[in-house]
């Protein structure tokens, strides 16, 4: 299982801050596609992603047990 943490507008859109996904071995790119299609999070493409508190590139692989933070651009100040 992968735990996805959602922040800011993504959290508001889904009305939850955590998404447990029954997945094993998926790339960052694939996860983003999945979140877009399954949950309508269209703006996820612009978001940064961190796997277990480390910045991840699009081809990086996510494994079961990982905690993935999806970090949308927050512009408020």
């Amino acid at each position, binding site marked *: 299982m992968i735990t996805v943490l959602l922040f800011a507008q993504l*959290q508001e859109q889904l009305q939850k801050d955590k998404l447990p996904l029954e997945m094993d071995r998926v790339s960052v790119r694939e996860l983003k596609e999945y979140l877009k299609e399954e949950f309508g999070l269209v703006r996820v493409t*612009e978001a940064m992603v961190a796997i277990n508190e480390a*910045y991840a590139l699009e081809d990086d692989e996510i494994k079961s047990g990982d905690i993935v*933070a999806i970090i*949308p*651009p927050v*512009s408020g*100040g």
Partner: protein
Amino acid sequence: MHTDLRRYHRQMMFQHIGDSGQEKLLEKNVLIVGCGALGSSIAEMLVRAGVGNLTIIDRDYVDLTNLQRQHLFTEEDVLNHTPKVIAAKQQLNKINSQVNIEAVVLDANPNSLEPYLNNIDLVMDATDNFDIRFVINDLCQKYEIPWIFGACVGSAGMSYTILPKKTPCMDCLLKVTPMFGATCDAVGVIGPAVQVVVSYQVTEALKLLVEANDKLRTTLILFDLWQNQFQSIDVTKAKDANCKSCGDNQTYPSLDYANQQKVAVLCGRDTVQIRGKQFELNELAIHVQKFGEMVMNPFLIRLKLEEHEMVFFQDGRVFVHGTNSIASAKKLYYQIVG
């Protein structure tokens, strides 16, 4: 030393600052871009800490809805429509008359900002949109000045410190300027989220200013106070040698005239035209519909707000009707687009 140091006693007792750190702080020059929630509190903390010279830039004036989270400002500032930097300077002078404060009412863009970077030790980001953050990112690489990113919305916030040529820069992290940022106008914001971002920004500022660079936090911090989340993200991997802002071949794309947002007042029409990012109208519609009554056709989106009307064209032009003020128009644009 002509300044009265006794007021900084508790800070000089802090072993990592001490007397020598305090003397460094008194001699430094910091530029704060933006004087809203982040900017006003950053200014207050740096002034109380005795940072010698502050320049604060902002184009906006104090509004009633600011008081919920923007420290330094009072109901009187709202009544007087005082520009934020002026209201801030008045209160800051009462707090610490020994600090030099230059308050600049200015719409920050590459050209207007550049002259203020002269002799600056550190730039604090307290802006509300990514267009200007990418400009700051390029300018700080060009002049080799460290800058500290901060942003917040809802109960969440983030901060990250960028050292020219050393750490990954904002271009490395985000690759492209985001289309829409989450704004406080769209999802609201609570005061504590602002203050945590400010506190992390100011701590790193103090480390840089007293030259304790070995103690700098190298991670991007990200938190959500309502959801009890805290992440400290190692971003080493994001550093991109091909980055146009900080890489081997720097072209500073956000300083390029072609990439700049162009704003013009349309004479006699009570309208300001902004030439911004090009939007996919369908995506834009999802984003802006919550702000007011929306009508769209394949060529444009018309958005009715309380006192203004905005028209977004497919080619990126935006008309803001109901004002001749570039500052008001840009404020509205960033409140809605982010």
